[in-house]
């Protein structure tokens, strides 16, 4: 029991929780926007990989860090456009297309990376984002290191939660996006193009996913590894359901997951003799349990995964 308190009372635990949550916040919001408009994007795992690779590679080739993030966003948006073209325009199965997009993007990212970075000892490093020093707050004892020594991308993630929430609940565009996910017929009957809304939502959402991936290579770590996304994309898909398609709850879910993850990382060395893979499973098991408990009463967007074909009933 003392080990438990030792872990959760350490400032580094809370800092790690939010750091581990950051890519999930971006990814979950990105998936959430798409699903609100009616499109499931299982390309997320591949899009995050592409974001991680392109963001890092741009910086490695000499671009400033923020330009790297922008490149990642554009790369993600472009893959999102492909997903939208297949699922929205052609009305193909969103599951199958999404999985295809993931396989494609992961392979393409690895290939491009290898073109620029030949296999050698350890992968090259870049100088990643440094924590932002906030006057007073960052210097507070315990609280400072726990909560106020994050990189700009983490703060951007939190800001994005607010922006997405505002978009969905307070703007006519947000209402139109939600309507496209609930009743595309109602949208179209009022002269609002479901095609544009869904395409836009998927592209914007994919850009966010890619930024989430780029956070890993330009802030959390300083180099790119194959398979570094490690299923984070799938976790985001589950978090959207956990969050009942609400940005605020998505943040909560991502933070909870970040805490589980930070906890198991710290628990590993304390319990010798147990294979570390068992600890790695912990956050996933807890996500499944949380899903079962929370999401049964969620209001699923009624038109989620239903292609809209004008003129059909």
């Amino acid at each position, binding site marked *: 029991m003392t080990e438990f308190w030792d872990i959760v009372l350490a400032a580094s635990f809370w800092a790690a929780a939010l750091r581990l949550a950051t890519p999930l916040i971006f990814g979950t919001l990105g998936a959430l926007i798409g699903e609100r408009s009616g499109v499931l994007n299982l390309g997320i795992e591949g899009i995050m990989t592409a974001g991680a690779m392109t963001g890092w590679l741009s910086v490695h080739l000499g671009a400033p860090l923020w330009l790297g993030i922008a490149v990642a966003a554009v790369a993600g948006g472009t893959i999102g456009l492909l997903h939208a073209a297949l699922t929205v325009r052609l009305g193909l199965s969103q599951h199958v297309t999404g999985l295809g997009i993931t396989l494609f993007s992961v392979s393409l990212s690895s290939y491009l990376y290898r073109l620029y970075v030949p296999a050698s000892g350890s992968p090259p490093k870049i100088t990643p984002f440094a924590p932002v020093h906030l006057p007073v707050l960052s210097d507070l004892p315990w609280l400072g290191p726990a909560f106020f020594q994050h990189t700009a991308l983490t703060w951007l993630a939190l800001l994005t939660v607010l922006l997405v929430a505002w978009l969905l609940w*307070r*703007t*006519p*565009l947000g*209402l*139109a996006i*939600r*309507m496209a996910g*609930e*009743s595309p*017929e*109602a*949208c179209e*009957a*009022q*002269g*609002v193009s479901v095609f544009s809304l869904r395409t836009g939502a998927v592209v914007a959402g994919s850009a966010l996913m890619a930024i989430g991936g780029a956070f890993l290579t330009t802030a959390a770590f300083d180099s790119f590894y194959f398979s570094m996304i490690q299923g984070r994309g799938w976790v985001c898909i589950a978090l959207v359901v956990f969050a009942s398609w609400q940005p605020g709850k998505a943040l909560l879910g991502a933070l909870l997951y970040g805490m589980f993850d930070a906890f198991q990382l710290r628990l590993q060395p304390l319990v010798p003799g147990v294979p570390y893979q068992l600890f790695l499973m912990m956050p996933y098991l807890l996500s499944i349990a949380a899903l079962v408990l929370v999401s049964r009463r969620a*209001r699923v*967007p*009624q038109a989620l995964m239903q292609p809209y074909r004008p*003129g059909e*009933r």
Partner: protein
Amino acid sequence: MSPVLELTGITKRFGTLLANDGIDLTLGRGEVLALLGENGAGKTTLMSILFGHYVADAGTVRAFGQVLPPGDPKAAIAAGIGMVHQHFTLASNLSVLDNVTIGTEPLSAWRSRRGAARRRLVELAERFGLPVDPDRRVGELSVGERQRVEILKSLYRDARILILDEPTAVLTPQESERLFSTLRGMARQGLSLIFISHKLHEVVAHADRVAVLRGGRLVAERPAAGASRAELAELMVGRRVVHASRVPLEPGGSLLRLDGVRVEAGGRRLLDDIALDLREREVLGIVGVAGNGQDALSRLFAGTAPQPTGRIELLGRPVARLDHDALAEAGLAHIPEDRHHEGVVGDLRLYENAVLERIRDRRFSRLGLLRRQAALDHAAGLIRMFDIRGAEPTTRTRLLSGGNMQKLILGRNLVEQPRLIVASQPTRGLDEGAVAEIHRRLLEARGNGAGVLLISEDLDEIFRLADRVQVIFKGRLSAPLPIEAASEARLGLMMAGEDGDAPRAA
């Protein structure tokens, strides 16, 4: 006075089908026009052209003197035309206000003007007598309330011409009365209205003028006052429709008895304390507004409902479970509500659908292989006996019209001479001719000793066929009434759950 709406020479073809043929129609300010016609007469096509969903091959639409650009719903909305579809286009997870305001603000605005929108909605609701709470989730509203939301949606967009497609199809008689008095009030305030209908009584009672469509052409226009229902019926169908009449018969023994039957699914009670007794040589009508448990009741006899609790007797013998085997053994014929999804498989050919339910029957299969020739012969027989038109045994079933599809479903059941028939909405969406044919067949089966459980939302159908009637409301059945003791007004009240005496006490 110049008309607010003027259609000239509207013509529309779908392939070889001439859906609209040179239709001229006008609508005056403050007028209520009824568009009367059977299914497939071209009513909905005409209104879709008017609203810009379809582009006409020829002809123009003028609203308030201006020609509307074809195929542009936005232009129609901007010109003050509002459309209330038969199938509502509402999002049930969103609020009334959300549903009404969608698309009314520029998408680039950084915030919605919710306060102003709410005030305007409440003001409109009061002015036109359409009370509704802006913050309720549409999924929680009754069908009548949803219809109000649809109407308000149009009014919110400053509609001055309102088109309603079969507005009473889903309402109780009382709700329909209320709707028409609201529509009257709107007309008095200067709105112009067109409602599509195939119900003669409401057309005569509530319209100023009636336009009759048949086979894509406008065949007659009459002032509604003084129009004769018989004449309108003949104009609509194109010939005199002879309805089979029900002759009184002495009912025989009990075929199907339910007592205290209850069905639950996902924690919700779909059917509660159901009691009914269907006898030989009678039609027992179950009437109610859609969504009160008819679906579960019908599925009970298809073997696709969750297993019920309570006492069930089939052909005088108690059965433990109403599963497929028990139903097949009793020779029960089931006419499902949704013929496209449950009745036939559209992509299969007619002969395949004809034998689909009896695929294990020796007549049609041998050693696990389909006896194709036997099935083809069987289908040809059905086509002949039940007058299925426009079809061969090898026709793809989806190409049949609704009426002929229903004749196929009815035919493949009746040809087996079932003793027990459960028919759910057997004539929904069919034209008068097909309705009369289906009714004749059901009465014929009754004459041959079968019992028919008729689940219907159509009071006219109930009065025409049923010997006794029970009302279904919120999953409960009323005690049976002899049809002679039932009036439209009384059944209407019971269907709305307002007749305290009638439903069985809990």
